[in-house]
């Protein structure tokens, strides 16, 4: 393999690995796409790189430019790494209730952190970032929830990689946050084979976010609506924290040390597998487990961890 010019060239082309040992049925294969292998440690490297490169192409960034984003962690970390390499300054609005490792990683890359109330979740961080963006029109606000470069990174990267490595795929399951992964991968795969099913997994965050004052403060990401997400998705389900943690633990049986949202995706794949005769399910493993060690997810009492995770943003 020739040497790469930049660490940023290592983003994407993540491995797909068979984890059917976790499947309840021999006739249902489950494969895991290991996005934790990206240099910034998560699937978010893809969207972050695409958004920054798009802005560079449009001439919106120059050395020293300030980039602003709201993030519960992974997008912020990915942007922080890329901004560091490309010479921009990142400011992240970060909810207070993310795992401490997420904050530490942002500090590693030199990002400036503006805390937002944990009780308002990602919604509150987004609201604060929007206000800051209005105050500072010279800052570049990628706004990942609406930026077409976000799903495009998956339409051009993640989707084709899955199709290349596993054209027999019948189901794709991933966490729903900005909807970038699901919309991009889903569009690409369904264009190749309209029979492929697209499953979205959500944490129970809508139940825990008490900062929502009014339903009209509710939020559906423009990335979701712009891509007719309600027509593209075939299934959307909540996976509770206890189950997510159980399956995050089970993943270690096949040698995968992953974040908690990966446990949710695999839990959904396993639950779905029970009702399928023959299938090949690809589950997205959004990140590695490193940033969650402090939660005790692998070692502490399951009930205690599940309780704590209820107050933590882990998607």
């Amino acid at each position, binding site marked *: 393999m020739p040497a790469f010019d930049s660490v940023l060239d290592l983003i994407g082309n993540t491995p797909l690995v068979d984890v059917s040992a976790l499947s309840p049925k021999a006739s249902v294969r489950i494969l895991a796409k290991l996005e934790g292998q990206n240099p910034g440690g998560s699937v978010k490297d893809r969207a972050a790189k695409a958004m920054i490169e798009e802005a560079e192409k449009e001439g919106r960034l120059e050395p020293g430019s300030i980039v602003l984003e709201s993030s519960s962690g992974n997008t912020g970390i990915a942007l922080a790494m890329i901004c560091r390499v490309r010479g921009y300054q990142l400011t992240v609005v970060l909810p207070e209730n993310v795992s401490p490792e997420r904050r530490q990683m942002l500090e590693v890359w030199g990002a400036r952190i503006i805390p937002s109330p944990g009780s308002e979740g990602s919604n509150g961080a987004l609201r604060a970032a929007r206000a800051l963006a209005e105050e500072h029109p010279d800052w570049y606000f990628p706004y990942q929830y609406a930026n077409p470069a976000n799903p495009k990174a998956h339409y051009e990267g993640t989707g084709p990689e899955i199709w290349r490595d596993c054209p027999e795929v019948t189901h794709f399951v991933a966490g729903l946050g900005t909807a970038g992964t699901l919309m991009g991968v889903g569009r690409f795969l369904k264009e190749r084979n309209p029979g492929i099913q697209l499953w979205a997994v959500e944490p129970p965050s809508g139940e825990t976010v008490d900062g929502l004052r009014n*339903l009209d403060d509710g939020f*559906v990401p423009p990335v979701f609506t712009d891509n007719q997400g309600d027509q593209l998705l075939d299934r959307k389900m909540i996976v509770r924290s206890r189950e997510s943690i159980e399956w995050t633990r089970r993943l270690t049986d096949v040698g995968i040390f992953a974040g908690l949202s990966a446990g949710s995706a695999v839990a959904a794949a396993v639950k779905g597998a029970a009702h399928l005769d023959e299938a090949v399910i690809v589950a997205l493993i959004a990140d590695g487990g490193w940033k969650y060690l402090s939660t005790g997810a692998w070692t502490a009492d399951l009930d205690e961890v599940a309780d704590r995770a209820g107050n933590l943003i882990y998607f």
Partner: protein
Amino acid sequence: MSVSVRLPTILRTHAGGLTEVSAEGGTIGEVVDDVVRQFPGTSSHLKAPDGGLHRFVNVYLDDEDVRYLKGLDTPVDAGAKISIVPAVAGGSG
């Protein structure tokens, strides 16, 4: 038949502070209508002017979003667990 419906914080003030209410109905639509009948203050929060679900409301039947089942026509069995959840920004946003 009777099912339990979990309400989000923002609807509780319109339902006498209750976290969970009982409602009758054979479909999700009938259950939602019964919640509105019992607690009229929830109406504008649950229903869109066209009679469908408010766009920022997700209704889950045993943790499955009913929009991807049969929507308001989704049949419910006795003892089903229904939760009403506001749509919020989530994820590694």
